[in-house]
């Protein structure tokens, strides 16, 4: 059953080196077996650019950051105050990929640049810095993408009036394995303007 006054206004799904936005394919890397780093650089060049900090991010942050860039294409957020925008994300591997890379550097000189990415919620920070989000945020680690829980959590924030817009979803990366499924949920309809229900969110993920 859909929840009144809450809408899924945009989606971005990244998996297998390709990207769907609002259910439509918008990008496929020219080399299907490309290195993940190269694939994410391709997304940056195609959908963003002009943000040198991107290159310093770990792969998890790059993936989440790029997914948000694509999600918010033609969906300006400047009508909101920073405190009205939240980010709720989840994944299975936490920041393990970067944790391992950091551990390798500890054998000689520990890398400060890697150390700062040894938490999974840093990706929320990178997204928030980029888009000036200062509202509620949370990062959950679970074995699988529990769509009713993650989108339901976002819906509750919207329903309670804590925020007016939420970027929420799944951002999973470990070695070359990667998947992002992001939703823009808001109290006002625009874009796809699908009334929110967990069932709708699940259909959009497939």
């Amino acid at each position, binding site marked *: 059953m859909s929840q009144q006054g809450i809408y899924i206004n945009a989606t971005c799904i990244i998996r297998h080196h390709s990207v769907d936005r609002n259910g439509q394919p918008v990008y496929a890397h020219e080399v299907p077996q490309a290195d993940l780093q190269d694939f994410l650089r391709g997304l940056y060049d195609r959908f963003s650019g002009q943000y*040198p900090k991107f*290159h*310093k991010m770990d792969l998890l942050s790059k993936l989440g950051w790029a997914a948000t860039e694509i999600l918010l294409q033609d969906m300006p957020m400047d009508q909101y105050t920073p405190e009205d925008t939240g980010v709720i994300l989840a994944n299975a591997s936490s920041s393990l990929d970067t944790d391992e890379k950091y551990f390798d550097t500890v054998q000689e*000189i520990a*890398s*400060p*640049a890697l150390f*700062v990415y040894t938490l999974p919620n840093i990706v929320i920070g990178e997204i928030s810095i980029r888009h000036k989000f200062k509202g509620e945020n949370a990062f959950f680690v679970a074995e699988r993408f529990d769509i009713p829980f993650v989108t339901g959590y976002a819906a509750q924030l919207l329903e309670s009036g804590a925020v007016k817009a939420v970027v929420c979803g799944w951002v999973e990366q470990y070695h070359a394995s990667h998947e992002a499924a992001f939703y823009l949920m808001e109290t006002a309809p625009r874009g796809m303007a699908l009334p929110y229900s967990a069932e709708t969110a699940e259909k959009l993920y497939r």
Partner: protein
Amino acid sequence: MEKLMQDLKVQIIQQLNLQEVKPEDIGDDQPLFKEGLGLDSIDALELIVLLQQYHNIRIAKPEDGPNIFYSIRTMAEYITAEKAKQA
């Protein structure tokens, strides 16, 4: 000194992963932080690591950091002075 400054620019780009910056984009006297290259506090730590890894120099007084890392030239001058002490 010129060779050292050129090497430093390449090393900084590599160490800090400045993929959209070329060595010739970095001026010898351009401030590295804030209005210059826009480096941040994590980058400052990476520059300390760079000095250790590439030049085998440990900064004895952390409070000297802002002066040492002000520009490519100040870094090169510091390295040259420290190498002379080691010789």
